[in-house]
């Protein structure tokens, strides 16, 4: 008779646990379901429809995807976001690391003040950053133009920073580097500061230069943070919309167009909700794939390092 009583007690405990879990998880599940999973499912469904947002939706199969991949604008957006992602990882992360390393290891009064300056760009809304960008690069009254005029540098005056398709992308990228690097600096600084001071002292006593200390100790120590930064920069680049749209509208001739801008144009300017949804699906799948791959890589690397 003792056995059934034990089972009954276990069952009672399970119900209590289930209720407890449900109580805490259900609200989040309902909110996520209503505002995330359902819209994702609807986006997938809509991507197979021809829809203007009004009236009936017509099933068109893969037509939206075919049209999107045939569109030069989408292809240019695709190239641009991956170029942006590549250079974000290659330029922005090393630069953020360099600044963070300097701020942590060389604590002078000036550098202390610079910390705030570096992070300032990150707290500014994108609209303000975009306005600043236009203010800097404007061909009529921009800072660069005014400076070039005042010192008589006609070569600089002639550069069309936002209107030349060969330059506009890099003008925007330099603005974005300034705007987005602040978070990377603070995040990496927080990680570098976790390194015990004894390790640094030991390295310096052993004769390591600052470069060797950075390369052989700090970078391996913050490698996880660097990889997280790489994921954030890559996914952020794929989803990029606000800054290019507000500064150049994706122009000139799609030189700064992104997947986000093509989505906005198709859905909200061209009233092609189906095609907009299809672009949304593509962005979602790319971001998902990159995140899964990079986390798999991170986990493998962690496992490997544990083995050694």
């Amino acid at each position, binding site marked *: 008779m003792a056995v059934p009583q034990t089972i009954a007690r276990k069952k009672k405990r399970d119900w209590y646990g289930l209720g407890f879990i449900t109580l805490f998880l259900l609200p989040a599940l309902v909110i996520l379901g209503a505002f995330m999973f359902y819209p994702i499912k609807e986006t997938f469904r809509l991507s197979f429809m021809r829809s*203007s*947002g*009004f*009236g009936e939706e017509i099933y068109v199969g893969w037509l939206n995807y075919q049209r999107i991949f045939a569109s*030069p*604008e989408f292809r240019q957006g695709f190239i641009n976001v991956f170029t942006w992602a590549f250079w974000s990882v290659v330029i922005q992360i090393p630069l953020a690391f360099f600044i963070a390393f300097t701020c942590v290891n060389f604590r002078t009064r000036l550098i202390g003040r610079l910390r705030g300056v570096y992070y300032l760009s990150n707290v500014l809304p994108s609209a303000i950053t975009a306005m600043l960008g*236009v203010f800097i*690069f*404007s*061909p*009529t*009254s921009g800072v660069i133009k005014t400076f070039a005029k005042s010192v008589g540098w006609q070569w600089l005056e*002639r550069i*069309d*920073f*936002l*209107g*030349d*398709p060969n330059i*506009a992308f890099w003008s925007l990228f330099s603005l974005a580097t300034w705007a987005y690097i602040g978070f990377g600096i603070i995040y990496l600084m927080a990680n570098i500061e976790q390194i015990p001071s004894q390790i640094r002292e030991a390295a310096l006593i052993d004769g390591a230069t600052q470069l060797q200390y950075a390369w052989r100790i700090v970078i391996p120590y913050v490698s996880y943070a660097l990889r997280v930064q790489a994921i954030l920069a890559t996914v952020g680049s794929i989803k990029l919309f606000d800054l290019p749209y507000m500064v*150049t*509208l994706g*122009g*000139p*001739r*799609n030189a700064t167009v992104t997947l986000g801008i093509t989505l906005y*144009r198709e859905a*909200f*300017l*061209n*009233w*092609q909700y189906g095609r907009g949804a299809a672009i949304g699906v593509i962005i979602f799948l790319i971001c998902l794939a990159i995140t899964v791959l990079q986390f798999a890589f991170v986990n493998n690397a962690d496992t490997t390092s544990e083995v050694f």
Partner: protein
Amino acid sequence: MTKSKWYGFLVMTLASLLVLSGVAMAQTTLTIWAVDGLELDDPHAYYVQSMVRNFTADNPDITLDWVAFGTEGAALNNRVRVALAANQGPDIFQSWGGTFMGEFARMGKLLDLTDDLADVATSEAAKSAMSYDGKVYGIAPFFAIAGLYVNEEVFEKLELEVPTTMAELEAVCEVLVANDIQPFAVGARDEWPILATYMYLVNRYGGNIFEDAVAREVRFDADPFVQAGLKIQEWSGRGFFGPTPMSEGYGDAQLLMQTGQAALQLSGSWLCGLYADANQTDQTIGFYSVPILEGGVGSATDLMGMTDVGFVATSTAASKKDAVVRFLTYAMSVEAAEKEAGRVASIPGVDPPNRLTGMASDVFTQAETIQFWWDQNLPPALTNPINLTIQSFLMQDTDVKAELGRYEILVEDELGRVQ
């Protein structure tokens, strides 16, 4: 009748009158979505602000719930589209007519006001802009036409005549370039500002060929479209749009005109208020017809333009139709329109508020045909691409014919192949 019965009768009558007056004074609230707000002291919004103030004072039984979305029309348009799709939204919204309005009319989202507004005096062009399929859905108290803004001071200083032909225009531009003055202020970074120039050039080369292209009788890469594109490319190469046309926004273009750094601008008459305001510019600017092309098809009286300020009623306001009609009728009154600081009125009897608006009104009254903005009058799927296509003509390495060919493929998707 006894005295008490008289008292009873009196009380009943008074009570009835009170009830009736209560019914008569029942408040109707009209929700109106617009671009301009009512709070700021902005000359651009004088008409709307005084119109709302005076209408509310004269009609105490109607409350206006005015919601402003900012002067960029996109925010208002996007909000309207989402709301009407869900059968929600305002009773009245500000609209520029065209296919954007037509799409709502086609879906039964708008209130047919054809009979109700039949007696409201307006120009045919304005009425046509606010109609779809023969039915009137709103009003357009102000109508914008595109014309040639000329800095008369600069012209006088350089002893230049206002051009009436394209050849004269090119000669004028050469002189301006030689004198380090930018001929045309455009603002092509914002995509749409170059559209008016292209529309006029297409008209001057091929007349009203645009309507034939929409009717699918000719392709969008037919000769006049290509010639107009090549002309923009040629002008851009000769520096007629300045050294950096692709990175100048519309605001930059206005600044160039206001400061006399540019001498010409082909744009809408909505700028008359700004350019006539001595607080905004110290230049003397005039408004003229766009030159003709010798040997071309289009004439100086072929104009490009559309609604400048317009209002449309939605089907959700059907139960308040009386209040809607009263508001729209007042918005079309001379009393309301004469408070405007610079736009061209489409209401007979409204005197232009300044010389520049008067010049634009004169051009408007001479119009024989008015072609609506292409980016407002094509199906929505084709409007943004046409602006992007035209913008690309400013670059020297653009293959104009190929770009128009790509646009034609989009048109075929929406409107079918040329018959």
